């Protein structure tokens, strides 16, 4: 009896763990970016785009940033770009943090959570990878050290397409 309970429960918990794949066209958006200008996803059609939803108050997000920076530097010239979408309504804390830990990839401000809702962000941080034809190919929620390998595998195969 107890084993049956354990089995049912375990299965039900394990099922959502498999969720994480994405499909369909990536929703289009335009957001204001650091540096003043507006940036839209359409600008990067033809490149592999990785969107990372982050916030300065989120520990794993901050931990991930330097790794994203090195990925960006390495693959940027091969038709890859990384967009850091900051989800905070007030960008002051994010800007302060970026002064101390600068990154070279574009930082966009999603102050009204429009894009977060479009991409159904369900965890912090969240990373999506879009292929050269504008289709969603990967969705990754959260960050644990080692996750960057998953990103790299996906980026490498998508760049070759």
């Amino acid at each position, binding site marked *: 009896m107890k084993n049956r*309970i354990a089995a049912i429960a375990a299965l039900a918990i394990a099922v959502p763990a498999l969720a994480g794949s994405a499909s369909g066209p990536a929703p289009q958006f335009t957001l204001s970016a650091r540096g003043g200008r507006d940036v839209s996803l359409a600008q990067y059609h033809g490149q592999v785009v990785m969107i990372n939803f982050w916030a300065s108050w989120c520990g794993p997000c901050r931990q991930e940033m330097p790794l994203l920076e090195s990925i960006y530097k390495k693959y940027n010239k091969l038709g890859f770009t990384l967009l850091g979408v900051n989800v905070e309504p007030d960008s002051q804390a994010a800007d302060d943090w970026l002064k101390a830990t600068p990154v070279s990839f574009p930082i966009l401000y999603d102050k009204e959570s429009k894009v977060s809702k479009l991409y159904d962000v369900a965890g912090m941080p969240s990373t999506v990878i879009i292929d050269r034809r504008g289709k969603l190919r990967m969705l990754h929620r959260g960050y644990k050290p080692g996750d960057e390998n998953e990103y790299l595998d996906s980026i490498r195969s998508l760049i070759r397409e």
Partner: protein
Amino acid sequence: MRVAPVKLMRAVTAALLLAALAGCAAPTPWVKPYEREHFADPIMSFNRDPVSSTYLQHVFETREGAHGATGSVGGGCGCN
């Protein structure tokens, strides 16, 4: 080991299945992960300075008849 009564076992099964279903058929979180910045603020932590709050709890517990139900965990920032 005592054999638990049937009613208790049913309640336990129900609770476990509910906890399990929490993963897949859960109500959509009405506070999105990107809306939880306040809970990452240390002033919103239930236990900001553990050495201090543990000490005060100890002071009260040794002078009063009541004890227990003082711990509080969680309050996730929605990270990870």
